[in-house]
């Protein structure tokens, strides 16, 4: 064990009011950032100020207030585009979240381009958000689902591509970073594989974009979906990045205002990309908040975010190794994983663990974390998960470990 890392980011905890609250009589130790992160005042203030000074509907108003609202909304798009280094802001579609982003590809691309005999290649560690939409589209089109297995160290097994990759594969959809195992996806390899057979690649980047530097132009993939609420931003908004070439193949999966060029009684035409994918009044204040979250993360620097998480995850893995009968599910190597640490402890059910930790003010998640197929593969119905972000500090890990020892005592684990 290397000892507690010094946390260079500890000072920014003051920006997160909730981190100074108490839970069950103890200071809150929020270790559930993979589910949703806390929000800094900078993000809250940006949204509040928007509503207090600039609120109007976007894109259609000829008056100053509406112009300002539109500029703020489109400005947020440009910020998000810059954050993932998109070739242009047009490549960013604002969505409701990661789930909606993936659904809009499944229904807007899959429904129009897939047919019987085609294959959709997924992996065994996918979140339901990157499984269920494809199951639905498979049902509608007759396409077939195929799964890449995992290696013994919990990574997507690219060796298995050999037997599974051929011209029938039209979509490869996978997680850029697992919300359970932490595993970082073999993006370049799968992007390359997809190109070799003409398939599109869809990256579920719900966990990836918040936690590591991402340059979509360097990744060699087609679509990348992520959400604001897991990266310091508000609920209610996410982004879908797509290469312009692929966005041009995408059909809108919702119809309504703002997304049309002209509407007749029986037919309509679409406006330009990305607005054709944003039917109706968009989440405007949420876009402003998303932009402010991006500003906040950029001020820290995503390299710093990543290395902070590496060090706190290293510390957590070391300290958890001290707890007898505790088993961690996920890669050992820090370079192959993010800061979601899932585990079981002896025969204590994860929900009981969560209750015991909660009594100490420690918030961890327990359950299948929206990955039932993965949990079946792991042969556990549920795991407990601690997950970290920029504001996480080693003291929280220490409290977690102490509470786990206490759980062993309560359950009389010998």
């Amino acid at each position, binding site marked *: 064990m290397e000892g507690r890392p010094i946390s260079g980011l500890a000072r920014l905890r003051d920006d997160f009011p909730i981190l100074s609250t108490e839970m069950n009589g103890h200071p809150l130790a929020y270790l559930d950032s993979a589910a949703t992160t806390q929000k800094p005042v900078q993000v809250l203030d940006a949204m509040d100020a928007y509503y207090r000074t600039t609120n109007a509907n976007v894109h259609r108003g000829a008056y100053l207030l509406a112009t300002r609202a539109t500029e703020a909304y489109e400005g947020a798009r440009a910020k998000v585009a810059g954050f993932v280094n998109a070739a242009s802001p047009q490549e960013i579609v604002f969505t409701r979240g990661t789930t909606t982003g993936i659904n809009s590809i499944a229904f807007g691309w899959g429904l129009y381009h897939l047919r019987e005999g085609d294959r959709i290649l997924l992996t065994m560690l996918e979140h339901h958000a990157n499984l269920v939409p494809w199951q639905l589209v498979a049902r509608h089109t007759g396409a077939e689902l195929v799964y890449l297995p995992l290696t013994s160290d919990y990574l997507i097994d690219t060796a298995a591509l050999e037997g599974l990759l051929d011209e029938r594969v039209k979509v490869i959809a996978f997680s850029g970073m697992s919300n359970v195992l932490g595993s970082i996806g073999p993006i370049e390899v799968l992007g390359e594989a997809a190109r070799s057979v003409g398939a599109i690649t869809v990256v579920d980047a719900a966990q990836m974009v918040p936690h590591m530097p991402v340059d979509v132009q360097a990744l060699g993939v087609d679509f990348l979906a992520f959400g604001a609420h897991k990266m310091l931003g508000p609920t209610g908004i996410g982004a879908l990045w797509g290469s312009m070439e692929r966005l041009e193949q995408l059909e809108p999966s919702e119809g309504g205002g703002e997304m049309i060029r002209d509407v007749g009684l029986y037919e309509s035409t679409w406006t330009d990309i990305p607005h054709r994918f944003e039917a109706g009044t968009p989440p405007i204040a949420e876009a402003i908040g998303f932009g402010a979250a991006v500003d906040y993360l950029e001020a820290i620097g995503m390299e710093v975010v990543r290395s902070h998480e590496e060090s706190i995850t290293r510390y957590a893995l070391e300290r958890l190794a001290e707890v007898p009968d505790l088993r961690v599910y996920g890669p050992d190597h820090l370079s192959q994983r993010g800061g979601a640490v899932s585990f079981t402890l002896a*025969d*204590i059910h994860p929900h009981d663990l969560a209750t015991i930790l909660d009594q100490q003010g420690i918030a961890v998640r327990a359950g299948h974390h929206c990955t039932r197929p993965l949990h079946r593969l792991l042969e556990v*119905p*549920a795991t407990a998960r601690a997950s970290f972000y920029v504001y996480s500090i080693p003291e929280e890990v220490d409290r977690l470990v102490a509470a786990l020892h206490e759980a062993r005592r*309560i359950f009389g684990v010998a």
Partner: protein
Amino acid sequence: MSLDDLYREVILDHYRNPRHRGRLDHATGHAEGQNPLCGDEVSLDLVVEDGRVTEVAVTGQGCSISQASASMMADIVIGKTIEEIAEISRRFRAMMDLDEGDPGIDASRPGEALGDLEALQGVRRFPVRIKCANLPWATLQEALQGPA
């Protein structure tokens, strides 16, 4: 409220050594209960003869509270009439504070006559977990209605 009050020894015993596990191929009633929010599952087979539950078999998985509750429930209902079970269920709900102030129940001693189940009293202080404790009872309700 201490955690030791929640996780009493008798609960951990039922969790680790659940009674009446298995399936019945001659069941007259069957039901499956799930708590979609936390994933707890309880599946019940039972035999009712002449208005009396003669056998119960439990499968499922989940937290100590849901599984111990199922085990204790099976223990107590076997051999009881439907009416007796209704009364026990009512007492159990009162103990869990599920029916606020049921007038038929002595509020100071709601757990009376519940046997091991009384150990679940501590759950009442952990509102999120009450549904775990109640899952087997809701499932029983259903199993008593339907055919296998």
